[in-house]
Every structure is written in structure tokens, then in C-alpha cells.
């Protein structure tokens, strides 16, 4: 096992060795033109066109560099997708807000039952506030961007755990480090000590619970993957993990709309304020025509579905993860598989 681990680690080091061919990203005749590259990134290409584009990008350092450059501009320049941006803004703020709320609750609960502490610099760290956490998060991201590939993957995987752990350690420190005033009567000391210990234990439990809540919120925040707009700007859908929610006030508030399924939902399309189609893994297709009740439709193959386009409650086209298309014109009662057109890649 150790030998395998060592060799895996060695492979990772080979892959991370910096390239020396930056200056050799010469364009070729086969390079994707800007529109084909954009369509590939937007997942608008289908069938052979998508495969051709992907095969080219896989073997072309220049097109990989262009795709990576586009990806780097996305977080900042994603100006035409307000629904996704809103999701990310929420994600950006929910973590520090949750942490700040936990700190505030723990401090408020712990302070009335413990005597006020004398300020002693160096003995007690101040709890991180919201802006400090946000700043720290930004610094981490900036450092991440500057950091070479070494350790990035592990760092990223640890990041979520660390954020929650930071909240936990801050809370715990605050809870278990109360100070007794020096002038407290000696007779009261044992009782006060017991009370302090009990309070500390209770605070520790509350802190752990708060940290678990923060982790759960974090997971929930991370799970926001799909936002679906309808022609009515006030009505929107979103998928949070396996939960489907609907808003009728442009996203200010959300109401869960149970689907009765547990399979992962991968995409959705809403052709009107009340009609919405969802697709997911294992041939999952859901349709609502009233915005409240979902109907699971029978799909011909138990394959993973990745894209859906719908014009109304009867007409929809579904693309499988393998790039095949199925269409229905009768609200999902029957499906027609059709070969996709091949859109050739050309350069302008």
C-alpha cells in the first residue's frame, strides 16, 4: 500500500512540474474559433461537434490556455447571469455571517452566568468578527491564486472543513476561558469553580452544536447548483441539493416544493411561471404544470440526463450525459430519440 501511495504521490509531482512551453502556444488551423470555444464552454455544442471540440482542447495547449483564461474571468465577469451571481453572493456571505452569529450567540449565552473577566492582553483572543472572517477568506483566496499547484487540491478539500473548524475553535476558546475576578470571596470560589466548569462544558456543547450547524449551512450553501429563471422575473426555481424551491418574489424568499425523489437533479428549464421541467441522474424527468405538484415522467433509458430545453408543458428536448437527444411533444408520454446534427468547427 505504501509503495502504491508513494508512486501515486510521484505521479502527482510529475504532473505538477511547471511547464516550460508557455511561449509555444502557437495557433493552428484546427484551433477552435472564439464562438466554438464559447459554445463548448456554454455546453451548447452537441454530439460530434462537442466531442470534436473537446478532443481538440484536450490536445491543444493554446486552446486549454484560452479556456482556462475564460474560466479565470468568470467569477468577476459573470455579469449576465444574475441568478447564479446571487447564489454565489449568498455563498460568500453566509459563511462569515453564520460564524459571526454563532460567536454572538455563544458570547451572549456564556457571559451572564460567568463573572466578567478582567481584560488581560495575551491571555484571551478576541473572537473573529464577520469582516475579519471575510477578509481572511479573501486573503486565503488571493494566496490560493498565487500558490503553485503543489498542495492546492488538498487545500481546497480542506477549505470547507477549516472554515467550520475556525468557527468551532473561536467559540470553544471563548467558552472555556472565562476569568474569575481576583477579588471574589474565597468561600465562593469552589462553587464558582464548579459553576464555571459546568458552564464551560455546556458552552462547549453549544459550541460543538453551533459548529455542526455551521457545517450543515455550509453544505447547504455549497449545494446550490442550479437556478432556473422563468419568463416571469418574479418567479424563479432553484435546486438546493436534492431539494427544489420556488420563489414568487424574485428570490427574496423561497418555498420548498417537494418532488418525492431523491435522485440528483442536474438541470431544469421553465417555459412559464408555472411550467417547469427538471432532469437528473438515472433518467429522472420531472414536470410541474402548476408550480406546486411534480409529476415523474417515464424516460426510455435509465441514463444520466444533463440538459433540458422546453418550450411549453408539452414540448421538450433532453440531452443525455453521453450527448444524445430525446424529444417529446406530448408532455413526456412518448419520447423520440434523434441523431444530433453535426456542427463543424471552423475558424474565422
Amino acid at each position, binding site marked *: 500500500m505504501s*509503495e502504491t501511495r*508513494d*508512486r501515486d*504521490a510521484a*505521479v*502527482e*509531482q*510529475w*504532473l*505538477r*512540474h511547471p*511547464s*516550460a*512551453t508557455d*511561449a*509555444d*502556444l*502557437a*495557433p493552428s488551423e484546427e484551433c477552435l*474559433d*472564439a*464562438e*466554438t*470555444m*464559447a459554445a463548448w*464552454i*456554454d455546453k451548447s455544442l452537441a454530439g460530434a461537434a462537442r466531442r470534436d471540440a473537446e*478532443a481538440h*482542447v*484536450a*490536445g*491543444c*495547449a*493554446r486552446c486549454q*490556455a*484560452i*479556456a*482556462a*483564461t*475564460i*474560466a*479565470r*474571468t*468568470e*467569477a*468577476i*465577469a*459573470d*455579469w*449576465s*447571469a444574475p441568478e447564479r451571481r446571487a447564489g454565489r453572493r449568498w455563498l460568500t456571505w453566509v459563511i462569515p455571517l453564520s460564524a459571526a452569529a454563532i460567536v454572538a450567540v455563544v458570547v451572549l449565552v456564556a457571559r451572564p452566568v460567568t463573572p466578567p473577566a478582567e481584560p488581560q492582553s495575551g491571555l484571551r483572543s478576541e473572537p473573529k468578527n464577520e469582516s475579519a472572517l471575510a477578509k481572511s477568506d479573501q486573503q486565503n483566496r488571493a494566496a490560493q491564486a498565487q500558490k503553485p*499547484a503543489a498542495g*492546492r*487540491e488538498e487545500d481546497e478539500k480542506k477549505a470547507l472543513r477549516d472554515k467550520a473548524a475556525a468557527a468551532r475553535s473561536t467559540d470553544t476558546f471563548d467558552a472555556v476561558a472565562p476569568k474569575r475576578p481576583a477579588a471574589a470571596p474565597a468561600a465562593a470560589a469552589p462553587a464558582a469553580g464548579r459553576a464555571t466548569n459546568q458552564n464551560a462544558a455546556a458552552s462547549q456543547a453549544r459550541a460543538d452544536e453551533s459548529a455542526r450547524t455551521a457545517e450543515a449551512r455550509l453544505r447547504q450553501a455549497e449545494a446550490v447548483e442550479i437556478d432556473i429563471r422563468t419568463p416571469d422575473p418574479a418567479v424563479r426555481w432553484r435546486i438546493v441539493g436534492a431539494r427544489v424551491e420556488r420563489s414568487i418574489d424574485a428570490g427574496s424568499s423561497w418555498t420548498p416544493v417537494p418532488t418525492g425523489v431523491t435522485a440528483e437533479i442536474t438541470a431544469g428549464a421553465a417555459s412559464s411561471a408555472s411550467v417547469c421541467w427538471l432532469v437528473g441522474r438515472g433518467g429522472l424527468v420531472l414536470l410541474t404544470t402548476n408550480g406546486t405538484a411534480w409529476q415523474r415522467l417515464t424516460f426510455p433509458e435509465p441514463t444520466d440526463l444533463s440538459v433540458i*430545453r422546453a418550450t411549453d408543458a408539452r414540448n421538450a428536448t433532453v440531452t443525455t450525459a453521453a450527448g444524445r437527444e430525446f424529444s417529446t411533444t406530448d408532455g413526456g408520454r412518448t419520447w423520440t430519440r434523434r441523431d444530433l*446534427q*453535426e*456542427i*463543424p468547427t471552423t475558424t*474565422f
Partner: protein
Amino acid sequence: MIVTLRLAQVLQYTPAHNSWRPSLDIDSALVERLLRRADGERWRLSTERFAETLAASASRAFAGKNPGSSDIESYLGSLHLKDLALACACAAGNEDAWECFVREHRPGLYRSADALEAGGGARDLADSLYGELFGLSVSGHQGPSLFRHYHGRSSLTTWLRAVLSQRYVDRMRSRKRADPLPDDEGPSPLSMPAPTLDPDREQRRRGIERALDRALAALPAQDRVRLGCYYAEGLTLAQTGRLLGEHEATVSRQLARARKAIRVAVERELRAAGLSRQQISESFTEIAQDPGRLDVRRLLDEPERKEETDDRSNDQGVR
């Protein structure tokens, strides 16, 4: 009654490609329906003008093919019609459309440029791109708008970012190639001791590189894109995931799977070359500690491109 709108009798001239191409028949009722979906009335876009735009897009998509009417209808229906109508109206000089473009897209274009170079070093690329969209050439003369290259297959936003990124990458490449070699302030090469080359080690390195090359070539395209974006381009898991439409946890899993596939393939090759288990382990570790000229980006490149790169490297070495 269905009226077929024939855009040209036999051949159609497409300025975008400076060539004559076979025309496509597009049903006028379909054009009107698509124009309504595209909100074309907002820009007072005529059916004829929009039909030309759709025909140019379809002609390009089906170049060299003979698509049926249902194929054309399906293709046109899949386009980003509102963006296409906006681009079409901007290219036609519609002031309302330009106002909309400036309001909704231009700020993002500049934010994209700033994301590439925080100090504003890429702003001139955005300025130049904006000018070309308006129809101004580098020399300042009015010409056809760059919008003619947008055919609605992606969102207008992604297309703008793609054009900007393409120009940025090409500019960085030309800058690096133009950079003078660093002044050699060290001791003369003649006075330095010759590097001690261990022929066995060099042979092992070449063996690993060959095995790695073949292992990478055997991976599916998506795996190579993932490896290239993450390792060669230095994207984060989240950025790689967004690019490929995957969750970052999936990217992480797939990278681990690809690394394992590479390891197994390289081990197999080295075993076939007669190396013992211990020699294989030593080779792995040795090259990990000192990869030398090992270059994954070059290995990921297609063979013909790799040869070009090698040729250039050799040329540079001669010069």
C-alpha cells in the same frame, strides 16, 4: 400558406468568410417565429435582416452538409436568439441596441479585462475589441462589425469573454517570444565545470517520459482537459469544475482516477521494459524529486503540435 424564403438563388456570399456558399432555405414563418422569440421588435429588426443572420449562422454550422428542414429548425431553435438579435441590431447600427449592449455587456467586458490583469494592463484589449464591435478597424476606419462573427451558438457574454481571452493568450505568447534572453551575468560557460550526466538516470527519465506520454495519450479527452486545466493551467478545482460543468468534488475524484490510470500504465510499461519492482519505485521517486525537462503541457499536446514545438525548441537552441 407557407412561403419559402430563398435567400439567394444558387450561392450566397458570406462576407464573414469572404466566400460564396450554398444558400439555405429557411421558412419565413419560422423566421418570424424566431424573431418574436428573440424579441426582435424591441430593436425594430426586420424579418429579412434577421433571416440573413440566421442563414449565415446555419450556413456556417452546416457547411458541406445537406441538412433537412427539421435539422435547420432544430439548430436555429437552439440558438441564443435574444443575444443574436441584439448583436444583429448592433451590427446594423441600431442606437437602442447599442445602448443596451453598452449598459449590459460593456462593463462586464472591462471587468473581464481587469480580471486578467489587475493593474488594467488588459484594458487596451477590451478597448480594441469594443472598437471592432462598433466597426472600427485598428487604423480607425469604419468597417464591418466584429459582431458578424457571432452566430448565436453561445451566449453573447461567453463569446465576448472568449474573444478577449483568445487575444490575451496570443498577446502573452507574443510577448514571451519577444522577451530578450536574460543577461548572463554568471561565469563563462567555459569556466564552469561540465554537468555530470548520469547516462542511466537519463535513460530512466526518458523511459518514464515515453511511458507518461503514452499514458496521457490513452486517457479520454475529458480527462486530459481536466489534467491540463488543473495542472498545466493552474485552475482551482472549482474553476475546473465550472469549465467542465462538474462539481468540484467530481473534479477531484476524476483527477485521482486519472492519476491512478497514469500510474498503472507507466508501471506496466516499465515492467515490460524489464525493470524490477524496486527499480520501478526508484524511477518514480527519482523523477519526482528531479523532473528535469519533464513537461506535462508538452506531453498533453497532440503529436503534430508537439513536433512543431520540438522543432522550435531545437531552433532556439541552435540560435
